[in-house]
């Protein structure tokens, strides 16, 4: 009984650790972004973001890109949309761009601390993927500070 519990505990803790560090094909955030943030923008932008999410989950990354770029034309200062584009790039394995786009999102995020934290986390993960552990650590620190 104790051993089973111990094994379960180890598995649980491992799950916690890896769940944060290695996002899957399309990084799922905890908690889900829809509940976390305020309305993402004008209705047109919301509609495009929804479709982008659908396309990305279906692996149709280029179509999701198109949606997000259209959203940016409508609302270019929407930090949330830039963040989504950064996440998409991450899912596409374009880590350098993911970092740039998340940085861009941060320049627009102002007082949205949860969003800034998510940006820094994404930047950190991307640096890990590229192989910049020092920069990843620095970014993670910023995520906590925010």
């Amino acid at each position: 009984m104790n051993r089973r519990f111990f094994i379960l505990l180890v598995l649980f803790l491992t799950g916690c650790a890896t769940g944060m560090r290695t996002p899957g094909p399309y990084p799922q955030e905890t908690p889900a972004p829809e509940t976390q943030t305020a309305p993402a923008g004008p209705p047109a932008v919301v509609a495009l973001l929804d479709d982008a999410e659908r396309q990305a989950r279906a692996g149709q990354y280029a179509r999701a890109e198109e949606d997000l770029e259209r959203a940016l034309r409508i609302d270019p200062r929407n930090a949330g949309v830039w963040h989504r584009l950064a996440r998409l790039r991450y899912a596409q394995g374009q880590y350098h761009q993911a970092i740039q786009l998340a940085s861009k999102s941060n320049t627009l995020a102002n007082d949205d601390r949860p969003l800034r934290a998510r940006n820094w986390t994404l930047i950190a993960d991307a640096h890990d993927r590229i192989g910049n552990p020092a920069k990843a650590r620095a970014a993670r620190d910023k995520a906590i500070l925010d």
Partner: protein
Amino acid sequence: MSKPKKSVSRKTRKKTKGRSGPSLMSFVFSRLALILLTAMVGYVVYLDIAVRNKFEGTRWPLPAHVYTRPLEVYADLRLSPAQLMTELDGLGYRQSAAVSAPGTYIRSGSRVTVFARPFTFWDGPRDAIRFSVDFTGERVRRLELGSGSVLDLVRLEPQLAGSILPDQHEDRSLVDLETVPDTLIAGLLAVEDRNFYRHIGIDPRGIARAMWANVTAGRWVQGGSTLTQQLIKNFYLTSERTISRKLQEMIMALLLELHYDKDEILEAYLNEVYLGQTGNRAIHGFGLGSLFYFGRPLKELQLPELALLVGLIKGPSYYNPRVHPKRALQRRELVLTEMVEVNAVTEAEVRRARDLPLGITARGSMTASAYPAYLDFVRRQLSQDYREEDLRSEGLRIFTTLDPYLQRGVERAVTQRLATLERGRAMPSGTLEAAAVVVRSDSGEILALVGGRHARLAGFNRAADALRPIGSLIKPVVYLTALEDPSRYTLATLLDDAPLRVQQRGSPDWVPTNYDQQFHGRVLLIDALAHSYNVSTARLGMQLGVSRVIETFHRLGARREIPSFPSVLLGATSVSPVEVAQIYLTLANNGFRVPLRSIRSVLTQGQDPLARYPLSIEQVIEPAPMALLHFALQEVVRRGTARGLVQRFPAELELAGKTGTTDDFRDSWFAGYSGDYMAVVWVGRDDNTPTGLTGASGAMQVWADIMQQLDLHPLIAPRPDDLQEALIDRQSGGYADGACGDTMRLPFVAGSIPAPASCARTVSKRSDPVRKQNNIGGWFKRLFKNFNE
């Protein structure tokens, strides 16, 4: 004598005798006949191969078609009803009260109802959609579907902006037989080939009828060629008119009919037929003919329009409706009459059609030269990824960032403002030239590009190719380099505008002067930039090092290699407006470099996605120096050389920009940006003689005309956490307080706020709340470091 001998000799005798008689002739004749027959058979086989090869191969090199951006409509978009209707007119939509078919719209009051055509975008097809737009003034208030439910967003089709033609300069828009209106086919057969479906390629009855018509008319009115023959003539043969050509044509027509069915031949004909000319661009096929004359797709045309197109076959220039409308009407009448003769249409339909005007669009809709400078730029960008022959022959569909409404507005602004400037200076009309580039800051998308004041002419593309000294427009690059080193330079740093002499090995000394021929002594860094002082900038640049400035220049996106001469610091380097746009785009985009782009995506001729040009950015300037530079460039507008702009724009927009005037007033430049848009304008003379215009009196005026057409948002520079504000004494650049007279508030990177000015009384109160937030310890040390600077 043996028998054989006898027979041989008899035969020989006979033969010898026959050679000089009828038998010789028949021998020769039979040999010749054999050779001739072999030759003819060989010839026919040769033609047969030629016919099949071409018909089955890639029949036509298809031009690349270049499209504008698609207009996206959503609530709160700044768009007037008139603007929407201009877009719809540009797409060839007809006004119709019912709005019951795709390609129609109607306006009633502040509501416009549209039935949009289906279209295949890069990310897939969009069905036809019927919707209404409610406006409040010049903004969209609400979008609604036909059913009444709210619509969040609708994307109209892009307009065809131009073509990249194959070597033969033939432009085409392929049509499938199924989509061609029956009326068109009926009209075509009535006029050109009534027995089309019955003959075998040549039509003796048709020839006979034609001859009869010619005889009774007393002149040549009809040929007897079938559609098949016409197709052969146009598709395969040169335009010689000899008997041998005619024979060849007839044989090939028979062969074509042998191998291919009527529908295939008809479809080829419909896409081959020559229907008009504009410049060196030949209009082939009814698909493009419809767009060219009526601005609408073929399947939307009505009887009178189709009849006109059919009528053009016999002589597109002779019956050109834009040049000879009376002839065109008569020809249309003849086609309608023939259609009645064969019962293709009723008398009643023809009566209705007869009353309608020609309906031709005013300009050659979708002319290849509608936006030549923009198209030229698109081609350059495409040539990086596609070979020229593919562009000219594969029928690619290119989707660009061009905003045709803005483009025309920019063209108008250039034309009108240049005329005004010329009048104001008693210059002959046409003296000045200009170039302009308008870009969306966050994406680098080029919305409009003007290569000269005569926008319709495909001439010298000044935006891309006019190399002019960049002049003062390089100064922000110098100042940015300085501001990136906050331990040495801040906006309050005192620069020395006293006379400067720079010795250069192998060249005469460089002695820069200011425009006002004055020297201004000690000036604040921000003032030196705002007022574009040359001497202090040159001195600053020398302190920084020319190579460092060049490094910044490249980091901002300029690709050009420039030599490391001091004169570079004042912009002695020649660049094009597009290059300037790339540099200022990085500034407008808050230090994120993004390549200028005119293409979003490319589809194949079959509407399959081929390529996409995604958004790609790179942060090349840290937020703090970027914020400082924004502030300085806003100061240029608030109080500096661009202060004329405050008369044209509300101060809340906080526009940023830089004027540029080169030696002897030869080049007038302005580059500036708002929250969302960046534009560069150059004004000058092609012969490089002085215009007398400064950046502010010339290019900046055009820039203002352009920007006033856009829905501008204020420039709100992101404020990084390590930025602080402080009151500064304008005389000494020291930290000030209320006791000082002439002060201004300036931003500083944390820890770089200068030492107190002598006028400041409250020296001990330096630890005020604003500064205490950051860097609690250590500011004392930094204070003394600044003091010693």
